[in-house]
């Protein structure tokens, strides 16, 4: 039954290219999807991003953050009946491109923007992009519930994903091949994992890629020899391993305290990026997101709030720099 959801996640994660009967249709689907992209580009040349007045505020980006964004938008729209907010996914990369093209007001990203991307945003809007960490997420490493392994070091994890270790025996488990699951290469989680766990080495060839964390969790729950990674919020039906920074360090399980304080080794911030001048509806929304109520929703969805001390009101610091930069 769980595989059913796995399949659904698959379908949901896929866009135009898959319902194809033959290559001809793939080509056609690509044409359509790219025609859509082309439209975006044209719009960007107009200069004025949408949602200035009357149009809904659009928030686009990370698939990891879609549920979070939706919950925020739902609650916020209930409170402020005049505001309309549209949330869409597509991946952090897609969201950033949309921001660069001016087709979204807020970009959600599960990774910090790259330098080249920041430069493009600056070229488009004339000032630096405004980066606001809105939640924290821990990347949990999952194994099947029957797996005797309880903890793992970062080095072992790196070796499993680069393919150097391929048997559970090397970790003190049974003499069985490790079935390694990961994410598609355009996902923010993939990039984060590659940077922080593999230290920029390449994933091994045998890593089976799946679209979405839910798909990874389901695949791991079906397979006793499997290992996978993904957002801590999703780890139901599988066991999340405790992680050691190195073999001498203490093993730390992912959890609210360890992720918020940063002792859990693979935690990350989730960001909002805003390109245009920070004011009006967007500003009100972001301020609400950073408020007690907005951060409470973060917890309900399964991520972790930004620690209080980091909770500087975005208007006083970041927005000011954005304004000065625009002058």
């Amino acid at each position, binding site marked *: 039954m769980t595989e059913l959801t796995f399949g659904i996640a698959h379908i949901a994660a896929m866009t135009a290219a898959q319902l194809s009967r*033959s290559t001809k249709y*793939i080509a056609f689907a690509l044409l359509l999807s790219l025609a859509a992209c082309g439209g975006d580009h044209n719009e960007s040349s107009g200069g004025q991003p949408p949602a200035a007045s009357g149009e809904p505020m659009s928030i686009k980006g990370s698939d990891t953050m879609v549920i979070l964004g939706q919950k925020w938008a739902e609650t916020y729209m209930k409170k402020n009946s005049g505001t309309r907010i549209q949330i869409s996914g*597509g991946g952090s990369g897609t969201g950033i491109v949309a921001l660069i093209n001016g087709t979204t007001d807020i970009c959600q990203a599960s990774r910090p923007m790259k330098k080249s991307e920041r430069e493009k945003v600056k070229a488009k809007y004339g000032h630096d992009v405004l980066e606001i960490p809105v939640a924290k997420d821990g990347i949990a490493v999952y194994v099947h519930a029957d797996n005797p392994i309880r903890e793992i070091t970062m080095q072992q994890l790196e070796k499993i994903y680069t*393919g150097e270790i391929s048997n559970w025996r090397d970790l003190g488990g049974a003499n069985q091949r490790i079935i390694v699951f990961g994410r598609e*290469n355009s996902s923010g989680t993939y990039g984060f994992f590659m940077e922080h766990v593999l230290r920029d080495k390449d994933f091994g*060839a045998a*890593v089976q890629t799946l679209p979405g964390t839910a798909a990874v969790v389901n695949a791991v729950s079906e397979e006793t020899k499997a290992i996978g990674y993904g957002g801590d919020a999703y780890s139901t039906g599988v066991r999340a391993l405790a992680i050691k920074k190195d073999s001498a360090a203490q093993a730390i399980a992912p959890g609210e305290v360890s992720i918020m304080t940063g002792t859990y080794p693979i935690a990350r911030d989730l960001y909002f990026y805003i390109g245009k001048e920070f004011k009006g509806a967007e500003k009100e929304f972001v301020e609400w997101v950073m408020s007690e109520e907005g951060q409470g929703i973060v917890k309900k969805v399964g991520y972790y709030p930004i620690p209080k001390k980091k909770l500087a009101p975005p208007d006083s610091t970041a927005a000011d720099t954005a304004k000065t930069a625009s002058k």
Partner: protein
Amino acid sequence: MAEAIIESMPLSRQVRTNPAAKNADAAARVAITAVAVFALAIIFLILIFIFKEAKDVFFDAKKRDQVLPTLFMMPANENQAVWTPISKNPKYSLMPMLLGTLKTTLVAMFIAIPISVLAAIYTACFAPRWVREIVKPAIELLAGFPSVVLGFFALIAIAGFMQRLTGADYRLNAIVGGIAVSLTAIPIIFTIAEDALSAVPKAMQEASYGLGATEWETAFYIVLPAAYPGIFAGILLGLGRAFGETLIVLLAAGNALIVSWDFLVPTKTLTATIGAEMGEVVYGDTHYNVLFLIGVFLFVFSVIINSIAEFYVKGRLMKKFSGAA
């Protein structure tokens, strides 16, 4: 081409005196020509579009230096990934996907050809009329099955069964994917093969019976060879269908880019790579161009296969064989 078809119509025979009818004729002709041209134009535009999006791989010096040296590279060891577009040191080797497509297609054809051809022989030569009238539409119905359903079925039912049967480490692999893909090729091959077998002139069979051949001998030594070009065309079209299949392999073949002839390791095909990565790729990136290059490969493959089926087999072989009949 469309013009030519219209031109060849026996217009001269339409001796009409009513000018209104003449105008209606002319309008209809224009409309039909436009539709035909439109269909052709769409195919052309798709072709141009795909090539345009892929061309940077060859014409942009920086991208060319990045992509071409690694395009067909083999991994140094079995762990090394050779398709790593998001990496400090990107590699764009198509070898694992080419091999993946080859493996799943081979498995699919290995299953589909015997089943569909034998089934076609049964319905065309042995089955009573009423059985044929049930079996044929039933198999053809399979062609209309959404491939996502077949992929699902493979993921849930076939994968577990095959793992128990083969004891493979990986639940999802080229065999599971290939079996599911064969379900899409079977109805195509069956239908075309069945039509070809039924089209063999009755006189040939009767002559065979008259010479004392049994039903079985007639089917295998007379009807089957006579229908060979049609069956071959069906196999080619089934092949085109099998290697173009995306969703099934994406769901059921395991999605790992391993360069290996082992059929029991997870596999990702050319189509599945496009399907999985196109959605989130950075527009205009090298990665994006290479995904379109894969599209170009697929386009060329399918044009070749379909052309052989269409022009060589249907055009030449069939004429030759039916001429002999």
